[in-house]
């Protein structure tokens, strides 16, 4: 019943772990680890957004008819978060710890509130609306990792 919630919330937690590892490395001036960890975080976060935008949201919109609803808000926030990811990548390239940490703080606040809204409201709605096809949707989202 909670396949979608479970799968995507676990994915959030995975991204959080990578985020923290990169930030910790920047804070101790370990730029090599920071770069590896940030790249992993960047890829995982963008992949998560793609899973939602190309699989979950279209299915949700088609089933509920809510094409101007919460998915639009979530897409807008994804765009904001992608912009900050870009800024963090640039700070990393320039080894600018202050800029990286300042953006990381900003990103974390945006990302965690965004995740909270998805986990509390959107995913449960999706679990409900897409109960009959959730197994298939999760399989499709997983296959994107490919």
């Amino acid at each position, binding site marked *: 019943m909670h396949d979608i919630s479970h799968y995507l919330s676990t994915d959030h937690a995975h991204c959080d772990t990578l985020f923290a590892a990169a930030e910790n490395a920047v804070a101790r001036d370990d730029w090599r680890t920071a770069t590896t960890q940030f790249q992993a975080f960047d890829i995982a976060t963008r992949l998560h957004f793609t899973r939602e935008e190309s699989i979950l949201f279209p299915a949700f919109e088609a089933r509920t008819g809510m094409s101007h609803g919460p998915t639009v808000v979530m897409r807008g926030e994804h765009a904001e978060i992608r912009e900050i990811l870009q800024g963090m990548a640039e700070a990393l390239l320039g080894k600018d710890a202050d800029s990286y940490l300042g953006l990381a703080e900003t990103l974390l606040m945006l990302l965690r509130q965004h995740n909270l*809204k998805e986990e*509390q409201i959107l995913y*449960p709605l999706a679990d409900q609306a897409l109960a009959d096809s959730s197994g298939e949707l999760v399989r499709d989202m997983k296959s994107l990792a490919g």
Partner: protein
Amino acid sequence: MADSGLSYDQGPPFGAPLRLFLTAPLFPLLAACLGLVMPDWQTTRWTGVSLAMTHLITLGYLGMVMLGALLQMLPVVLGSPVPAARLVGWCGWLGLGLGAPGLALGFLLGEPLWLVAGTLLLALGLVPFSIAIAVSLIKTRAPRVAWPIRLATLALLITLALGSVLAGALSGLWPVQALADLTALHAAWGLLGWVLILVIGVAYQVVPMLQITPDYPAWVTRWLTWLMLAGLLLYSAPSSTDWLPNNDLPGALPLCASCVVFAVVTLRLQARRRRRIADVSLDFWRLGMVSLILAALLFAVLHGLPAAWMAAAEISLGILFLLGFAASVVQGMLYKIVPFLAWFHLKTQTGARLGAIPNMKQMLPEPLVRQHFRLHLAMLILLLAAPILPAPLGQVSASAGLLLLAGGAMRLELNLRHAKTLFLRHGGRLGQAAENK
């Protein structure tokens, strides 16, 4: 979809919570000045000046910040907007801003007119606020998140009702027996019901969020606030039972246990955080949790203390809970909320490139926040040490503690204004709601 509740657009303009946040530090400043001029606040919690200082801190400071934070946070964590948030924010600002000093003046002068006027103004601020957030709390699609905040709001209304009865009694409007018992209930519902249950409900969301810690265990989120409600109800039960010598005990025990459980679980979660970078906000939270544990332990042994220590211990309990626990947590939250909102509103209002506007840490630089933490910690140590130290030293310690309380309040005010100035300088508008460009 207008009522999806997922968008920040439904939060109030930055100016609404900021007005409350910027006014709040004036009240600890005022309380500190009062305490410096009238040192008999140290004799018992019942002097006019003690009661005035207490209400300046609870209503003026904590009340204003909590109200502002709730107006801002509820749409995000509950996915349901607070109706008329701007208007409710204004009412709350005026009601608390005039009511708290009015009430304080009533206590200081022993003047019925001011007590009644202060209480009426407070009700004028808090009732519309409670109704508005009740709507949001009822309509939410995230009931798990909403329950602790629902309980806290109920406790706020009970506190206000008990406070009104007490103010009426002190003003001679109606007779009340057992004034002291009723005061204990008023304090319990206000501090443990409203302040602590609200902090717990908020902590369930923000502690894992800010530090990337594991979630609170399910047994805590499921039972703790209900245990507290049961404790409060037992504590409020008529006090004429024969079967227990100290009949506060059945209620006091679950309440003390809840405080300790919450604080210990929070500290343990924070110790397991994935984010290991230095963070003053985290330090404020940890100081708050340690103070809460100490407050609960002191509360538990209060009745066993020698009579000569009782008055001083009660004042230390108030300092531990209000300044050590509640103010620390509130400050830890403010230092996340304000720079985030300044950045977020600026970004969405101006549509500026990322590099063209200050990031969160530039909005409120860490060294400024760290200064406030140091002032706050030193203030606590001095105020708590004062009653233990021998006479002249104790007096010096208390006065120095109050000076630091004033200094901390001013540092907080300047820190928040730093973010406001940067926000305005980069073209932000306080009255405009965030709108994605």
